C-alpha cells in the first residue's frame, strides 16, 4: 500500500522491522526500542502529505502481542491501537470492508483514493503543460518561419538565378532543407544541452516542494531527452523551412530576380 513512497524495495515486514515516516526523527538511528522490543529501521518513507509522515509502520501481529505484555491491566489490547493499515485486494471494495468491521468507529483514509486524486491532479497539470507546450511550439514555428522567410527572401535573387540555370524546385528544397537543417541540428544540440544542465536543479526544486515522489534524473533520461530535443528542434526547423519555401517557390525565376533587385 505504501510502496510508491518507500525509499527501498520492500515487500514484507518481518517481526521487529519497522518503516519510519518522513517526519519521524530517526536521524543516525539504525534500531530503536518500541514497547520494550528492539526494532530495526529498514527504511523510511518519502513525504506523502498524510498521517503516514508521522507514523512508524510495523507488523500488526507483533504489535498485538507487545500490547498484551506491556499493558496487562488493559483487557482489550485493541483499544490501544490508534491506527491500522489494511491492504485490500485490488478489486475489493473499501466500503464493503468497512461495513464488515463491526464495533470499531474508524477514521478511514484511503491511500488509493489519495493516489487517484493526486493522479487526477497531476493529469490535469500535465494537460495544461502540454497545451502550453503546443502553443509555444506553434509560436516557435511562426517565429522561425518568418526568420527563415527573411533569410530566403534576402537570397531570393540568388534563388531566381539558380532556378534560371536549371535548378529544379526539389533541388532547391533539398539545398535549403540541408542548410536550415544544419542550423536546426546545432541549435537543437546546444538548446538541449542547456536544458539538460537546468533540469537537474529544477527537479531538485520540484522534489523539495512536492509531497509526491519524483523520479530521479539519470544518464539514460538525459540522453533520451537530449536526442528528443534535437529531433524536435530539427522538425520545427524543417516545418519552418518548408512553409516559406513553398511560398517562394511559386514565383517564376524572373519574378524572384526582380523581387530581389528592388
Amino acid at each position, binding site marked *: 500500500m505504501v510502496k510508491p513512497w518507500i525509499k527501498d524495495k520492500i515487500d514484507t515486514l518481518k517481526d521487529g522491522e519497522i518503516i519510519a515516516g518522513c517526519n519521524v526523527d530517526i536521524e543516525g538511528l539504525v534500531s530503536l526500542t518500541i514497547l520494550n522490543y528492539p526494532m530495526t529501521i529498514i527504511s523510511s518513507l518519502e513525504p506523502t502529505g498524510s498521517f503516514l509522515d508521522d507514523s512508524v509502520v510495523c507488523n500488526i501481529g507483533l504489535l498485538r502481542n507487545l500490547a498484551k505484555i506491556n499493558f496487562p491491566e488493559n483487557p482489550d489490547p485493541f483499544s490501544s491501537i490508534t491506527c491500522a493499515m489494511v491492504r485490500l485486494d485490488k478489486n475489493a471494495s473499501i466500503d464493503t470492508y468497512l461495513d464488515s468491521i463491526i464495533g470499531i468507529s474508524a477514521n478511514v483514509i484511503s491511500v488509493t483514493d489519495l493516489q487517484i486524486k493526486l493522479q487526477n491532479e497531476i493529469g490535469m497539470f500535465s494537460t495544461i503543460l502540454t497545451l502550453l507546450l503546443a502553443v509555444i511550439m506553434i509560436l516557435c514555428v511562426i517565429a522561425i518561419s518568418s526568420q527563415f522567410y527573411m533569410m530566403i527572401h534576402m537570397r531570393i*535573387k*540568388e534563388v*531566381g*538565378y*539558380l*532556378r*534560371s*540555370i*536549371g*535548378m*529544379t*524546385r*526539389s533541388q532547391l528544397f533539398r539545398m535549403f532543407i540541408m542548410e536550415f537543417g544544419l542550423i536546426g541540428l546545432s541549435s537543437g544540440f546546444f538548446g538541449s544541452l542547456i536544458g539538460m544542465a537546468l533540469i537537474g536543479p529544477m527537479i531538485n526544486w520540484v522534489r523539495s516542494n512536492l509531497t509526491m515522489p519524483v523520479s530521479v534524473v539519470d544518464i539514460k533520461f538525459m540522453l533520451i531527452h537530449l536526442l528528443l530535443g534535437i529531433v524536435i528542434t530539427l522538425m520545427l526547423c524543417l516545418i519552418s523551412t518548408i512553409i516559406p519555401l513553398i511560398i517562394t517557390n511559386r514565383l*517564376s*525565376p*524572373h*519574378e524572384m*530576380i526582380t523581387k530581389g*533587385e528592388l
Partner: protein
Amino acid sequence: MFELTIEKVTKQYSGNDYQAVKSCDMKIKSGDFISIQGESGSGKSSLLLMMSGLLPPTSGRVLWNGESIYDMSDNALSIWRSKNVGYLFQNVQLVQALTVRENMLLSRSFGNDPTLDIEALITLFGLEDEANKLPSLLSGGQRRRAMIACVLSRDPLIVCADEPTNDLDSVWASKIMAILNDLKKKDKAIVLVTHDSRWITDDQIQYVMENGELNQA
C-alpha cells in the same frame, strides 16, 4: 538541330493596364544570330525572358521542337532551361557566396558537357586573376565577363543575351560580340537584345521592337 518557335506571345504584367509584349511571333533555328533592337521599355527583355522559359506569358505559346515549354512540368522546364538556354541577364546575376571559378563549376554541373574546360573559358574572358575572388570584389566589367563565362560553362544551345556589352569597355565589348558570333559556327543560336546599333550586322536576322510589337527589319 533544334527549333524554338514563339507563337502569339503576349505579356501583361499584373498591375499594368497595357501589354508589355503584344502577340509576337518568331522562329529561332540552330545557327541563327537574331538581333532585337528597340527603345527602352519597348518589351525586349520581357520577350527574351518568355522565350527562355523564365517568365510565363499571359497568352501565346513557346514551342521547343513542337513541344510547348510552359506546358511541361516544372521539373522538365528546369532541366530544359539548364541544357538549352543560357540567359545573359541585363543586370549581372551570380551566386554571391561562390568565387568566379566555383560559379562556373556550379553552372557547368547543370549543363551539357561535364568535362568542359573551365580554365580555357577563364583565360578567354581574361579572368585569371579574378577566378578565385567573390563576385562582390570584382569591377562591373569583370562581373559581366564572369556571368558570360558562367553561361558558356553550361554549353547551352541558345544564348539569350540582354545587353551583353553593358559595363564593358569597347575592347571587351568587341571581344564578347566576337565570342557570341563564334557560337554560330558550333550550330548554336544567339538572340541579342541591344539598343546599340554598333553590334547590328547584315548577317543577323534583325528585329525591331516598338511598344511591345515585334517587326522584322
